[in-house]
């Protein structure tokens, strides 16, 4: 009964999405006001329909209804309830349903956001129409190729287990976060197209930018959060102690993140200075295309990847078709409808030129990742041999856009719109430069030691980024009110977050230590300043697994630090054990121990790591997220109130 209801709800959502597209894009001759009312209602039906479909699937999971194929494949009666719910997005069909539901949720929030007064109405409804079209295509995709409500005629008594790797708290929220980021980029995409379709010559063609900015930031916040959670999960769960593998699936999330970052900076220029409108539209198109590309890469199973799970070529071709359709259609629309902008002379020392420059660097970075990710696939398709592009390519090649990017971020902060005074800039920048060099020398001399010129550059640039972002906040001349500080705060936080991340990456990769070692009881080994001693190996049990637990004592020469318990979990006798690493961390360093196996002679193998400043890699993005949220929830209302006051 319930799966049939879910099916029915999907069909309802499909019909609603169709009408949302039809009415929204103005294919009928009714008045704008009427369209607005109708579209808002349809969006509600569409969203509620998909939400209830999610609830139906969730109910099937929680009630162990193994007549539903998807439930039988991904859940069993022994699974804790939290993971039964998370199993909704544990595999292909359900994760697409989630993807779709989140898309409708963004449309819903967009349809009912207060910002839109009458002059935005046409822009907004048309954008909702485009969102409806995207939804419609993907409901079709789900119904025809990936139906989560497919019913088995002879249901099994017990279901298969959910991949134990996925039974983890971070993985409960990682996919929803990441998907929310991916599909959130559909909103600026829809707004950009809507602007091309509706705007007349002149002022109105820039309106979309101010609306799109907030939505881009929100999508970007979710995307950032999703990527960080994924990286954190990989670190403690995959058992290798690495935090980024340049796996195509990770690249698939990093590429839209880089272009979305470019987009949200470009929108600032378009909104404030009425410049780069075409470039912003292009970035909005590219960002969403890369979201779709990411979905395609992850879900089509064409990758040689440690992440790719389900595979079925027909699905891949369907998504690729939609990717081609939306990207191609959008680019065509841009080529046909974009109104030539008046040529403007831009001073090189202006904020707009620095933002443009850095957006080009961000796009370059995204492009370089794209090449490294797709080239092996292309070669394979042409039967020209099998290759993979290793981490060294990415690690090296990304320095080319990122080193100048970080340098220009520091410069850009001290520019003004239109024209900047070079003398004033230099007088401020020399202090920033001096401070960052001091910071770098300090880190090298007092903390970590010299580890190559590139490390020194990395630390200096991290300092440069952070100090330049802090300067406008502490400078007394330009900041005299709390309100002014609030305006700068989001930018400062985001740039400080970036600086922290760069610092973490540089220090961890330059000074981190790794050791694979076998230990007997009572034996110890030293990694850096830390001594790891194996005290004991015990057996334990959890709700649906049993485990082997090692007791490792960590100490330095003078102090005992802690005892950690790396584990090997066995969820199911037929599948191999899972590593649960033992981690002792503080802001300064991470100590990581993964238990290997019994290597005979009463010895066990261990993977040991010392990683200084590793946490900054995740704290940095977290600070960026706070910056983004500040912009949306604190700074924006402030600005709007001010506008109202000016009107009075």
């Amino acid at each position, binding site marked *: 009964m319930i799966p049939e209801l879910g099916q029915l709800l999907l069909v309802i959502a499909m019909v609603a999405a169709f009408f949302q597209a039809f009415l929204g894009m103005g294919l009928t001759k009714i008045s704008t006001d009427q369209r607005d009312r109708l579209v808002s209602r349809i969006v509600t039906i569409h969203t509620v329909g998909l939400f209830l479909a999610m609830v139906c699937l969730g109910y099937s999971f929680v009630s162990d209804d193994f007549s539903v194929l998807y439930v039988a494949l991904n859940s069993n009666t022994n699974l804790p309830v939290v993971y039964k719910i998370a199993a909704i997005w544990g595999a292909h069909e359900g994760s697409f349903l989630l993807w779709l539901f989140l898309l409708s949720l963004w449309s819903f929030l967009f349809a009912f956001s207060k910002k839109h007064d009458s002059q935005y109405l046409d822009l907004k409804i048309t954008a909702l129409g485009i969102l409806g079209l995207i939804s419609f295509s993907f409901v079709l995709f789900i119904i025809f190729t990936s139906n989560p409500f497919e019913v088995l005629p002879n249901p099994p008594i017990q279901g298969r287990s959910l991949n134990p790797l996925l039974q983890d708290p971070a993985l409960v929220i990682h996919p929803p976060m990441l998907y929310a980021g991916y599909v959130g980029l559909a909103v600026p995409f829809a707004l950009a197209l809507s602007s091309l379709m509706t705007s007349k010559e002149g002022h109105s063609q820039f309106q979309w930018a101010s609306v799109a900015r907030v939505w881009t930031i929100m999508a970007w916040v979710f995307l950032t959060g999703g990527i960080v959670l994924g990286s954190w999960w990989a670190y403690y769960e995959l058992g290798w102690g690495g935090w980024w593998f340049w796996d195509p699936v990770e690249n698939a999330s990093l590429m839209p993140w880089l272009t979305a970052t470019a987009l949200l900076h470009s929108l600032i220029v378009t909104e404030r200075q009425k410049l780069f409108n075409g470039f912003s539209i292009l970035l909005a198109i590219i960002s969403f295309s890369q979201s779709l590309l990411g979905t395609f890469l992850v879900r089509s199973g064409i990758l040689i990847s440690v*992440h790719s799970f389900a595979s079925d070529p027909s699905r891949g071709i369907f998504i690729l078709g939609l990717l081609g359709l939306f990207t191609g259609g959008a680019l065509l629309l841009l080529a046909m409808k974009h109104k030539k902008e008046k040529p403007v002379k831009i001073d090189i020392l202006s904020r707009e030129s620095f933002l443009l420059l850095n957006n080009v660097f961000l796009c370059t970075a995204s492009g370089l990742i794209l090449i490294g990710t797709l*080239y092996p696939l292309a070669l394979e398709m042409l039967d020209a041999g099998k290759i993979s*592009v290793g981490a*060294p*390519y990415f690690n090296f090649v990304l320095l080319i856009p990122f080193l100048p990017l970080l340098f220009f971020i520091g410069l850009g902060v001290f520019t003004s719109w239109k024209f900047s005074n070079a003398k004033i800039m230099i007088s401020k920048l020399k202090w920033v430069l001096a401070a960052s060099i001091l910071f770098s020398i300090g880190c090298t001399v007092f903390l970590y030691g010299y580890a190559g010129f590139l490390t020194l550059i990395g630390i200096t640039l991290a300092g440069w980024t952070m100090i330049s972002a802090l300067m406008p906040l502490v400078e007394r001349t330009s900041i005299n009110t709390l309100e002014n500080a609030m305006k700068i705060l989001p930018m400062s936080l985001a740039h400080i977050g970036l600086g922290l991340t760069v610092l973490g990456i540089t220090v961890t990769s330059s000074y981190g230590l790794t050791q694979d070692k076998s230990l007997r009881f009572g034996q110890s080994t030293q990694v850096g300043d830390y001594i790891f001693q194996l005290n004991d190996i015990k057996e334990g049990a959890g709700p649906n697994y049993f485990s082997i637990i090692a007791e490792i004592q960590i100490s330095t020469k003078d102090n005992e630090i802690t005892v950690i318990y790396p584990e090997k979990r066995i969820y199911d006798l037929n599948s*191999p054990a*899972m*590593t649960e690493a033992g981690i002792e961390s503080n802001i300064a360093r991470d100590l990581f121990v993964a238990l290997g196996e019994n*290597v005979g002679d009463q010895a066990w193998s261990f993977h040991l790591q010392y990683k200084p400043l590793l946490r900054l890699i995740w704290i940095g993005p977290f600070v960026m997220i706070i910056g983004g949220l500040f912009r949306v929830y604190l700074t924006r209302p402030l600005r709007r109130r001010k506008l109202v006051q000016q009107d009075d």
Partner: protein
Amino acid sequence: MIVVLLGVGLASFFVLKSFQQNLLYYFTPIQVQSGEAPTDREFRMGGLVQPGSVRRAEGSVAVEFFLTDGNVFIIVKYNGILPDLFREGQGIIATGRLDTEGVFIAREVLAKHDENYMPPEIHKIKETT
């Protein structure tokens, strides 16, 4: 203008060079045996772990096993922790280089990730055996 062009040119040169250097080619054991694989640089080799071939140095992390495509096998030596999913008869991909005796010295060993996923190359090997 010239500076920009020079910069872009130089950057492209480095990108291409790095691309060339960091491509890892993939070979099967039979290709390695017939001498198709390079001896002067790293590459990846995929196949199944020959059942009964895994040998350890007692009490150490050094391990040695045969990687097979069903017909021929190559000896692989690895000094480190093996992935959770490493088992005899299992498909794996090893990254490393050949030593002078034709033994593959692995720097990294990846196993297939769960029951549903298998690297495409390994899938092909399984089908042909």
